């Protein structure tokens, strides 16, 4: 049984798409415009679901989380929000185990090769060659 990660999308604090990468060549190509719309829509949906948390649970507003997993019969979308508002979206197979391990590794690669790069401006599209290289190596090796 193939354990496959389909693609990764990174959304910045304002809801803009900063990174997009497909790991599987069999996927249909999505146009850049559609990806931007997807990122913005998800950002909005995430914010809405955050405020949908019932107040009767007594959770303070800064601890409420939005949508974490979206699953269909064809794929599973896992969202990892960081404390700074960046969101990592991972599209995988519906039965992929260890998604949080993968996402944590992606976050570690981001913290290393994007944030420590002096030529990267925050909230801008990610164009770091070292990040791409290490990400592809990790995904191919798993």
């Amino acid at each position, binding site marked *: 049984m193939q354990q496959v990660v389909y693609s990764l999308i990174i959304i910045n604090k304002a809801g803009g798409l900063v990174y997009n990468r497909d790991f599987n060549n069999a996927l249909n190509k999505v146009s850049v415009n559609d990806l931007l719309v997807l990122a913005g829509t998800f950002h909005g949906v995430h914010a809405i679901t955050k405020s949908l948390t019932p107040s009767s649970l007594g959770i303070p507003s800064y601890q409420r989380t939005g949508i974490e997993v979206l699953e269909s019969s064809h794929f599973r979308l896992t969202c990892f929000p960081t404390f700074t508002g960046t969101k990592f979206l991972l599209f995988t197979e519906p039965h992929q185990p260890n998604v949080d391990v993968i996402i944590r590794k992606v976050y570690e690669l981001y913290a*290393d*090769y994007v944030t*420590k*790069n*002096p*030529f990267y401006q925050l909230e801008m599209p990610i*164009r*770091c060659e*070292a*990040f791409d290289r290490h990400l592809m190596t990790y995904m191919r090796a798993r």
Partner: protein
Amino acid sequence: MTTASPAQQGPTPLASSSSIQQQRLPQQPPQQHAGLRTPSNRKTIYDRNLNRTRTAELSRASFAYLFGEMVGYAQKRVTGIQDLERRLNEAGYPLGQRLLPLLLLRSSTPTHPAPRPIRILPLLQFIAHTLWRHLFARSADSIESSSTNNHEYMISDNEPLVNQYISVPKEMSQLNCAAYVAGIIEGVCCGVGCKAGVSAHNAGEQGGLWPGKTVFLIRFDEDVVKREGTK
């Protein structure tokens, strides 16, 4: 009565604090007169690492953030790539000058003092092995001499530590932030009296085994080569 008691309490805390200070003062001069502390094994503070234990580590991430900020700071004040590399070079130069006597002192024993390298090849070996091991915990990968020019020598490093997290954008592909390390090398060379200009160049192929391979080109002055004798 209620007003009298605070007045009585008022001066006394001050008096006690001053007495504490007076108690502290006599302790300080004896420590000052003791001078440089030399424990029984005769090792002074210069023999020891800044971190007391051998296994104490520095955070690579902290250094990466600091170095990234240095590059960003320089970038705002320069006009071009050459200028940026020159600034990084100048930032590393005093580091090399200070490391030279420290490393020589640490590698020498009272019976065998380590001599300052005065000829080119021992100097290059000192840089590629002693200096590199002190800074990066490994040796440099190779020392080469240029076949065309007897002034020029090259030290190469397959993956410079300072460049590990940096991805230079395509429009600045000539830039190599290891110019900082080149400055350190230049400081060491000038410190031993062999004046040289050192620059860092990208030698890695895209998609090769070492895409970040860097070659440090060391260009010695005329007089140094003449002093060395004919090759």
